[in-house]
């Protein structure tokens, strides 16, 4: 191949939704972009798989949380086939006996549902929501923008901190105190202080810790919760359900990126990112092809980016140590089932079942389930988040059939007894638990698939099955994500930007890490006139 055809302005490593967003944006801005994905399909965790012919199900992620509408408009995704079926997808605390609590509908409906459990909790709901809102409001500006510098060296950086401080401080002393007091604390104590209903606390604590390594009693779990909520509410339409599952989003992003002129390569694993004199030179693919470009946006996790692709030899030893210390361990498993018909949940209509169903009877159940990840075992009673996407989305299944998608958090990546038999045991436990909520469900299962954490790593390219590419804790977030030095200036390598979940603001199908990386890359190319 001639050198000319392999020369690009920007190369993107990883074709997940973040990679596709970056490719689309940069190609639309007139840059020559190439994207290299190791797997044969694009989308990574944002995909749809076929269970049996004609029956499709969200493969990994099952909702699109916090994808900014501005990005949909900017990339003209609707023109390229994106169809939003549901905005602000709600959560429901599911109860085996039918006393479900909808959590994100109108405050009145939630209060009413809680009233059937406890009048005290019904009264406490609005106070709880206000406090939660205060926490989320404090984090939202930081979430939505690029993280402020930890130690600003110019007036602009200092003003940015001042703006955040004043913005929070002007809400009054007690609100400010509350935010500072609660943010580093744990979700469980906050919930215990607020409510007495086990179901309510269980569902909220599951919502608080899904995707993390820690249980609700761990310090910092409230920050994780507030951060996730900030991400969801940073976009006006909240959590979306799109036609065709998250794969529908991937398809639209792919079409858009291709239409804008980006070259998308699949089955093209990257061997290394090459750099010389602290400046990016390009990529070398495993098939020996070389791509020359002055800018690389890597959407794979920071550890792989710096230690495997770039290599420690190009980095300072202290930085290598810091990158080595990034914790990646919040892994989940996924069970997808094809059902003959819609299962019966007592007293739940289709509008209830179209939300995100939280199956967690109590706070302690969530905490116990979280232990399984720490100790490398399977939980006796898994807690889970369930969706029935086919209720809203008729394109997924033939008439009358349905699919059910289950995210099981806190699954150890390295199971003590190995995952060979573990997958089947997990499915049995999941179906048994689902049977407690919907007695006819176990008999309706036509087909199914289970993705245990190692499968999620190999099939979806999610390293360690951690969709955040690095635990989202206070010490690994914002201007310290993935490490303080990398957040500050992307290390000592000029032209390399992290645009995946491992970068600020973190995981989820938000596209925001890619947005920040694109902005930084454009700034860089203007500064260096490349």
């Amino acid at each position: 191949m001639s050198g000319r055809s392999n020369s690009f302005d920007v190369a993107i490593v990883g074709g997940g939704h973040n990679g596709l967003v970056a490719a689309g944006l940069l190609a639309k801005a007139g840059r020559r972009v190439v994207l290299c994905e190791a797997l044969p399909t694009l989308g990574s965790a944002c995909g749809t798989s076929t269970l049996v012919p004609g029956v499709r199900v969200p493969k990994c992620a099952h909702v699109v949380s916090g994808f900014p509408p501005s990005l949909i408009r900017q990339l003209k995704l609707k023109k390229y086939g994106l169809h939003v079926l549901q905005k602000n997808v709600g959560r429901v605390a599911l109860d085996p006996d039918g006393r479900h609590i909808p959590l994100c509908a109108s405050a009145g409906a939630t209060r009413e549902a809680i009233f059937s459990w406890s009048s005290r909790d019904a009264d406490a709901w609005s106070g709880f929501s206000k406090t939660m809102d205060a926490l989320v409001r404090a984090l939202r500006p930081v979430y939505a923008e690029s993280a402020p510098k930890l130690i600003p060296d110019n007036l602009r950086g200092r003003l940015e901190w001042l703006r955040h401080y004043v913005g929070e401080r002007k809400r009054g002393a007690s609100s400010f105190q509350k935010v500072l007091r609660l943010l580093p604390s744990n979700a469980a104590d906050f919930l215990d202080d607020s409510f007495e209903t086990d179901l309510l606390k269980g569902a909220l604590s599951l919502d608080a810790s899904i995707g993390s390594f820690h249980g609700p009693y761990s310090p910092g779990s409230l920050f994780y919760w507030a951060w996730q909520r900030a991400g969801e509410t940073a976009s006006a339409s909240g959590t979306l359900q799109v036609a065709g599952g998250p794969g529908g989003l991937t398809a639209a992003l792919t079409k858009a990126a291709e239409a804008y002129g980006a070259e998308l390569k699949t089955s093209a694993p990257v061997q290394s990112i090459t750099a010389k004199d602290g400046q990016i030179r390009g990529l070398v693919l495993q098939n020996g092809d070389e791509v020359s470009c002055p800018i690389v946006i890597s959407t794979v996790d920071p550890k792989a980016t710096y230690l495997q692709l770039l290599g420690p030899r190009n980095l300072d030893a202290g930085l290598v140590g810091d990158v080595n210390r990034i914790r990646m361990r919040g892994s989940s498993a996924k069970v997808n089932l094809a059902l003959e018909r819609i299962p019966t949940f007592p007293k739940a209509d289709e509008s209830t079942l179209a939300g995100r169903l939280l199956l967690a009877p109590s706070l302690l159940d969530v905490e116990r389930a979280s232990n399984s990840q720490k100790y490398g075992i399977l939980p006796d009673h898994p807690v889970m988040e369930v969706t029935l996407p086919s209720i809203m989305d008729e394109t997924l299944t033939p008439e009358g059939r349905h699919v059910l998608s289950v995210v099981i958090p806190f699954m150890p990546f390295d199971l003590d007894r190995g995952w060979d038999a573990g997958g089947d045991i997990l499915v049995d436990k999941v179906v048994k638990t689902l049977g407690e909520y919907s007695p006819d469900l176990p008999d309706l299962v036509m087909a199914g698939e289970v993705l245990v954490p190692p499968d999620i790593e190999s099939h979806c390219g999610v390293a360690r099955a951690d969709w955040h590419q690095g635990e989202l804790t206070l010490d690994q977030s914002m201007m310290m994500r993935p490490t303080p030095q990398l957040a500050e200036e992307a290390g000592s390598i000029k032209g390399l930007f992290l645009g995946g979940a491992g970068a600020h603001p973190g995981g989820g199908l938000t596209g925001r890490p890619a947005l920040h990386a694109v902005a930084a890359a454009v700034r860089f190319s203007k500064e260096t006139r490349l």
Partner: protein
Amino acid sequence: MSQPSSDLRTWDQAVRPTPLHQRTSEFNVTNQWTTELGWTLPDVYQGVEAEHAALRNACTLSDLNALVTYQLAGRDVGAYLNRLAGGCGGNVKTGASRRVVLSNDQGALIADGVILRSTDKDWFLTLAVRCLDWLTLSASGFDCHVEDVSEQLCTFAVEGPSACAALLAAGCGGLEALRPGAVRLLQIGTANLVVARVSATGGLGYEVRCSAEDALFVFDRIYRDAALFRPVLVGQHARDVARLEAGHPKVGRDYHPATTANRGESRTVLELGLGGLIGIEGDPFSGRSALKKQQLSGAKHALVGLELDGSEVPVDLRLSDASGVVGKLTSVSWSPSLKRIVALADVEAKVLGSANRFQVSSRTGSAISAAIVPRPFYICPNARRTPPDAH
């Protein structure tokens, strides 16, 4: 291993003896001792002046066991040392050595030392600072194993104009051909030695390494066979004076290792004037980008050499110019070789452009004038010369 039969290890003992302690304690007439990295070493054997004179004019022996010796093994040792030490640490041929500096990500000096390569596969890194943690951290991603072998080795120095002759007399044949920095494997009796023509005191000198078990045998043999040259034992004090004359900064005094420095104490390689030991445009190494940045923006401090008027060694170490205090003396001593007071001083870099004369207060309060002079203060004529044959 020269371990006592009991379980008591050397680091458990209040006085941590070096493998040569038995001899150094016999010769230490003044009973003045000092400690370095926990090792007990003689400070002054008989008198600083006499020891220094021997170092410059005759033949001396000194205990160097406070040097930390790391042995490196693996396929990537060269690449590892390049990244660890200024981008050039791995460019050492078999039978050669190289003076190197280790810097952290911020370019701050962790340690200076010497890399020795005695055979194709035997790499040693000798430092005046223990930093196994940093060395291990740096090994991530390299096939390189680092081991602290200081406990198993005995290191001592044979220095002075007749050092070569003394070692030849002791049976170290072929030593006269050794160029500065060269390393050679030799034997005395059954003991294997690694002899390197490396000296921190700025003259002709050899570092001799043998296993700790052979330490006394080798030392005695050299002391006995070189009797014609009247070897003198030199303590740390006289060595420090000679080292200062040679302009080498001393760890803990002229610089603080970045791994243990307090806030504001660490200095970069460039600030310490050791930029010649790194290849800033060469291979990537830890701290390169920080040092490049500093090259552009300018250093905040500088370690400079000073010559002071008069013969009084000041006790007040503050250094001032017309605007006030601008730095402090880190090492100061009467130099017997130069017959004047020399010092190293850490000064604010901003004053360097405007002045090269400073004042230090004397004991009586009068001002002693100090002028910046290039380092090394004293260039020993036999440092690079091929030593005359023993005959």
